[in-house]
């Protein structure tokens, strides 16, 4: 039998995972609705929550949040069978791989920028290997990275603010 304390932390973790996933999906929707004047750039707001999950909960939980986010976003927005699902999956996996490997070694902002970099790398690799095997993608990749580095910086900043508050907040159950 699990102690009542153990049950509580478990519940707290589950609750946080569910909350973070839900917020990530919402941010994804908001992100999709935004049309930026530059074609190759998206903000990637939902990645804030990947970082928050990683810092407040841990690696396994972050993996769950990302997996649910990608799957449910694709389901909700009708992109499960389209290239964008596989592109998103690859980008998010690459970013998460980098984040879990580096999050004890880097500060938040470089970590976030690196995550954005790996996200773009994963995306472009899948596009190149499965959809458009053309070297012109290199230039597009470069543009993506310029935007990605910028948004990575701001996402890291925001994630830092949120993590501080989440760590102070006590989810009372």
């Amino acid at each position, binding site marked *: 039998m699990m102690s009542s304390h153990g049950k509580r932390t478990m519940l707290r973790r589950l609750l946080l995972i569910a909350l973070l996933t839900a917020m990530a999906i919402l941010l994804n929707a908001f992100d999709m609705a935004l049309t930026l004047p530059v074609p190759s750039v998206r903000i990637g707001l939902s990645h804030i929550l990947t970082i928050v999950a990683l810092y407040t909960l841990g690696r396994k939980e972050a993996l769950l949040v990302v997996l649910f986010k990608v799957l449910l976003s694709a389901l909700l927005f009708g992109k499960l069978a389209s290239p964008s699902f596989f592109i998103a999956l690859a980008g998010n996996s690459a970013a998460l791989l980098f984040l879990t490997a580096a999050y004890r*070694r880097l*500060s938040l902002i470089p970590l976030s920028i690196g995550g954005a970099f790996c996200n773009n790398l994963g995306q472009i690799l899948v596009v190149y290997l499965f959809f458009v095997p053309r070297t012109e993608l290199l230039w597009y990749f470069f543009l993506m990275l310029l935007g990605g580095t910028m948004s990575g910086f701001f996402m890291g900043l925001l994630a830092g603010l949120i993590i501080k508050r989440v760590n102070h907040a006590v989810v009372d159950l």
Partner: protein
Amino acid sequence: MTLVKKNDILFFVILASLMILLGWAASAERQRHLTPSGGELVIERPGQTLRYSLDRDRSFSIGTHTVEISAGRVRVTEARCPLKTCEKQGWVAQGVIICAPNRTAFIVRPSREEGYDVITR
């Protein structure tokens, strides 16, 4: 927690050099692709297939039709047929103009570097 870790500096150095390298490679690659390389117009009519480069702008008559090539696009300016569908089609940068009565097809193939491969949303 210290404000800047040693790894952070290392990270930014690696990132900056990667970006410079990538920017250089990407722009070189882009230059290579931007140099024009010929698309072509293939005209298929009864008994013959003719090929013309789209690089040079010109206008010429071919049997029952007068064709104009300009800026990599093709149009039929005059046709000896009742419906003149091919004339009405106007400029074509990629695709086919077909004149059924004269059994003639004008196939416009842009160079490999132009046009879309895939559109994803």
